[in-house]
């Protein structure tokens, strides 16, 4: 890797820092929308481009779906970069009772656990693929 100008060591690959701005925008049997931003650090001295996002979303330990859409994010050299994760689906799951229960809990002021497990793939200098795995959970409450 050193020979083509990458200055990060194998042990110093780009890594996940934290999740921020997690919001459950809509939680009803008709629509489910969860927004969040994953923050990563590009350890390389080169720019990169995100090519793939594959993240499983869980609400209170229940699998909801996959976040695969990604916005074009400029990844600058040796700096942090934000990847917005947007999950939006009409008539999301068959378990309406469970969903209503979660919605009721949110309104009552309790928090729900939002968990993300997956990876992002990016290409450094246009062709070197890098995969960053991550797992994180956030407790979200309305108030």
């Amino acid at each position, binding site marked *: 890797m050193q020979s083509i100008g990458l200055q990060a060591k194998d042990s110093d690959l780009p890594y996940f*820092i*934290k999740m*921020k*701005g997690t919001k459950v925008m809509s939680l009803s049997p008709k629509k489910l929308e969860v927004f969040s*931003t994953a*923050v990563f*650090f590009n350890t390389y001295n080169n720019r990169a481009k995100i090519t793939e996002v594959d993240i499983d979303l869980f609400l209170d330990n229940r699998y909801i779906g996959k976040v695969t859409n990604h916005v074009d994010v*400029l990844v*600058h050299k040796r*700096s*942090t*970069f*934000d990847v917005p994760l947007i999950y939006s689906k009409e008539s999301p799951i068959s378990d309406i009772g469970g969903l209503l229960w979660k919605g009721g809990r949110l309104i009552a002021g309790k928090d729900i656990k939002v968990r993300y497990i997956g990876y992002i793939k990016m290409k450094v200098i246009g062709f070197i693929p890098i995969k960053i795995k991550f797992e994180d959970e956030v407790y979200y409450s309305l108030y």
Partner: protein
Amino acid sequence: MKKYFVCLLLLLIVLSCKNSSDKDLLSYKNVYGLSIEDLDKKRALLSAEIAFANKTESKDYKLKEVNIDIIVDGIDMGTYYSRDIMDFRSQSQLKVPMKHGLDQGKLIGQKEKLPTSFVVQVKGKASFVDIHGKVVSVSIEHKETVRPATTRRQKRREKRKERRMMKQERKIVNEKGSNQ
């Protein structure tokens, strides 16, 4: 049995007091020299120095990480993150330099004129570790109005813009005069 319980309770109280005093003795002081430069470039540069104080009598720490969210005029401008290890000796101050690139498009948006000031909010935490591996987190919060540094290139651009505007105005006036 009762005696042991009382001893254990006392020990716990002493330990908790010791921990809390450590946290109090390691503190965030201020953010100095907050400035925005290179506003005419695609990526403007926000730089500052974050100061911490170590008031412990004989306990040295090492800076483990700094994790700060940067908000400018209410817009999230990303996160500054650093894992650079720095020594933090007892009875001393530590100034951590911070440099963060700001996306010009996000910063200025579709405003016609360059803003003369920005409200910069810095929010996050720094983690320190002692020789035994105990981690102490210190939260950072600072808000300041910053006037961006104007560069020569910027001034020249503004002058050129003014001249262009004057020319256009003159043209319009001349056209009106010739029509009459």
